[in-house]
């Protein structure tokens, strides 16, 4: 059986459910609510994208889903079992790379299996397959600092996939990349998803990225964040950037989503200092037009 089939057959895509989860920090009169009564489902085998103005509490939500922090109220379950802490079935790709700088690419990828003592012949073959899959076969001995931004992201994808998580969580992973590499990574990542159909939860502030990747789009409100709107993106797969630009359906979704997003972004601006009012001014002019 080729490694690709081993990988595909081993995948047990999970379903992550959040039921009116909320999170606040601090104590006494200094509390600050970041997530309030937020409920949503990340369906099995679907690529769900969450979009919201930057600083609206998305990263806090990711830390709750990954189990690094506990919600103040509400529950999070993966395939029915409650999420108690970080585990291999929910792996996170952070905004900045978390490749271990002191390990070569190969050691980074094999970290998970080695940590759990599950290194078999098959794992090594899988590692080889993943290395070639992400195009880093002749960069195995390099250290992360010697790789470009795009390569680091792909190495991290390989490091996560070898642990075969039931759900992959990505927090604006392509944010630091330049626009061109970013677009290439979109196509690369969505092809990877289409091949394995693992449950993916992708967070971003870029509307084009969201529409290109998503089966289902969650639009989040301003801080304290909750689900403001849900869009089913019924664009055909496999998705190509060229057809995204032409298709009227995707542009129509984009305009609808943008109008809600601007509404939310405006709320976060209007509460700031005088200078923020000018941002609102710029937005209101645009809203008047579209």
């Amino acid at each position, binding site marked *: 059986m080729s490694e690709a089939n081993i990988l595909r057959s081993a995948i047990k895509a999970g379903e992550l459910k959040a039921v009116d989860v909320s999170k606040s920090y601090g104590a006494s009169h200094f509390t600050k609510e970041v997530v309030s009564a937020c409920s949503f489902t990340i369906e099995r085998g679907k690529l769900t994208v969450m979009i919201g103005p930057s600083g609206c509490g998305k990263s806090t939500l990711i830390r709750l889903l990954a189990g690094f922090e506990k919600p103040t109220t509400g529950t999070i379950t993966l395939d029915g079992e409650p999420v108690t802490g970080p585990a291999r079935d929910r792996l996170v790709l952070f905004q900045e790379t978390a490749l271990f700088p002191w390990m070569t690419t190969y050691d980074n990828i094999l970290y998970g299996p080695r940590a759990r003592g599950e290194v078999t012949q098959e794992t090594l073959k899988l590692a080889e397959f993943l290395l070639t899959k992400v195009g880093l076969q002749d960069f195995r001995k390099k250290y992360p600092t010697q790789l470009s931004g795009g390569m680091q992201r792909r190495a991290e994808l390989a490091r996560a996939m070898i642990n075969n998580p039931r759900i992959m969580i990505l927090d604006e992973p392509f*944010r*630091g990349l330049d626009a*061109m590499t970013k677009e290439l990574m979109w196509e690369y990542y969505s092809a990877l998803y289409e091949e394995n159909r693992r449950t993916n939860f992708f967070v971003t502030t870029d509307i084009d990225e969201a529409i290109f990747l998503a089966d289902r789009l969650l639009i989040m409100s301003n801080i304290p964040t909750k689900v403001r709107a849900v869009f089913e993106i019924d664009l055909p797969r496999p998705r190509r950037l060229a057809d995204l630009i032409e298709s009227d359906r995707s542009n129509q979704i984009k305009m609808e989503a943008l109008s809600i997003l601007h509404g939310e972004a405006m709320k976060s601006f209007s509460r700031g200092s005088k*200078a923020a009012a000018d941002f609102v001014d*710029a937005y209101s002019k645009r809203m008047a037009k579209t």
Partner: protein
Amino acid sequence: MSAMVAAAPPLTRPTRGAIVIDDVVKIYDPDGAAVMAVDHCSLEIEAGEICMIVGPSGCGKTTLLNAIAGFHEITSGRILLDGEVLCSSEKPKADPGSDRIVVFQNGALFPWKTNLDNVAFGPLMQGQLNKSDALEKARGMMADAGLAGVEHNFPGEVSSGMRRRVEIVRALMNDPKVLLLDEPYRALDSLTKSVMHEALLEIYYKNKVTIFFITHDLEEAIFLGHKVAIMTTRPCKPKKILEVDIPHPRDYSVLTSKHFRELMEETNEAVHEEALKAFAAGEKEG
């Protein structure tokens, strides 16, 4: 931001700030191995035009900018500003001056000066204005660009979007002929970026300065530019020049217009090709 865009006077092109890049070559020799960064590049930018330079990372776009600004030498060829020779094979290094001001990628506002002192820095240094006049003018320009209220904060205390605008205002305080922008909005998230684009156009319509703008983002290039030069991967030279015939003043609705999408398709192919070449060559991030 106070003047409504629609009411802005019809756009007249200024007579200064025309740049001619004539057959420029630049060869680096990091520890001996001669690397050609710019390969016989020729490009003409009219006075008051927004010229966008698009190319994959590490392809030598910044080298061109550094040559115009006078930070680096060129190996051969000429660069002219309004007909005067900035640099040529005889005088390989142009001398920096306040007629060509650079806005850097990671920003270069002096973190130890308040935003107001930063903006007033240029005229103060050149002794054009005394302290109180300079601060007065700076306060006016900052208010004009929607930055009233953050004069006495330090750059580290305001958002990155706002820092960008303070830096552009600092440049415009010296009434330059050319603004050289090196991927100024790269680190911003796309919602803030869309606001920055409008703010830049707003300032451009009021100050009529030539803009030499380096970016990776094709959409940003076509939305802002009169002219878009798509560069090859290293060594860089213009591969395709696109005249963007969308009338100014522009605003965000342009993005969803049919004509804009046609322009995107036309250039997307060329840009994609270069990106793949750079991607395959495993170029370390520029």
